[in-house]
């Protein structure tokens, strides 16, 4: 494998989605190529950046509550706790 091919596979390698054959050749190339090894490290970092830097918010409680009521028809006195009441 040459560096060009290794660079094309890098994104896929970061996700662990290479075929076994590709992975074997890719890792073999990395073991022989310092610059590709470094580039692979950077590629992994980019993925991590996205995961870390994009803010995650919690769904509003009103939304959670309304979804929890799905299947429970309106007008039931206990509403949210209905299923649990019925089980016990």
């Amino acid at each position, binding site marked *: 494998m040459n560096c060009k091919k290794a660079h094309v596979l890098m994104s896929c390698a970061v996700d662990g989605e290479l075929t076994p054959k590709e992975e074997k050749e890719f890792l073999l190339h990395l073991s022989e190529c310092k610059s590709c090894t470094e580039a692979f490290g950077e590629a992994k970092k980019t993925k991590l950046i996205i995961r870390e*830097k994009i803010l995650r918010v919690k769904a509003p409680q009103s939304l959670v509550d309304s979804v929890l009521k799905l299947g429970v028809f309106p007008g039931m006195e206990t509403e949210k706790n209905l*299923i649990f009441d019925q089980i016990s």
Partner: protein
Amino acid sequence: MDTQKSSEKKKTKHGKEVLSKEELKKQQEFQAEAIAHINSLYNYALHLTMNPDDAEDLVQETYLKAYKFFNSFERGTNCKAWLFKILKNNYINRFRKNSREPGKVDYDLIKDFYHSIKDTRVDTTEADSDYFHSLMHEEVYQALQSLPEEFREVIQLCDIEGFTYEEIANMVESPIGTVRSRLYRGRKLLRGQLENYAKKYGFNTDTEE
């Protein structure tokens, strides 16, 4: 939207409404399987609509539809992926028509959006302290938003939501090879953007080790 509910109700001899056994079972299973993904769905909806009210509507609709068709959910497969696909279809049908033009980035909108969700954010952990880590949340978000939609979408689904290529392929209705090449090209563009930001702060973006 709620018309099908009436057929699922039945009355006891006291005239009190209760859920049928099957409906109760369905509801329990639905709650166990589907509700766990509500935060992920809400975040994805926020990124798509950039508006908390629309996001809430979108998630609500998604769950309504998911509940209605829960019997067609293939047990044992990824429920989160199934819900995401429903959400995406809903989004296309309802919101996309009047969405912004692809490739155009409204930075003010992003700023406002970030400002509006900042207070409720879930804290993230930050380890290293190299130039990429100096990037602001907002900048990474802007960089991501500046990508053409087909690239941004797969990066979000892969890096943020952790779906496999197969799951993403199914969601975006494209072959796995397409997902793979979109990720490759999208990340290349994204990296270029991020390096621009980093350079702005005087960080050396040449590979250092």
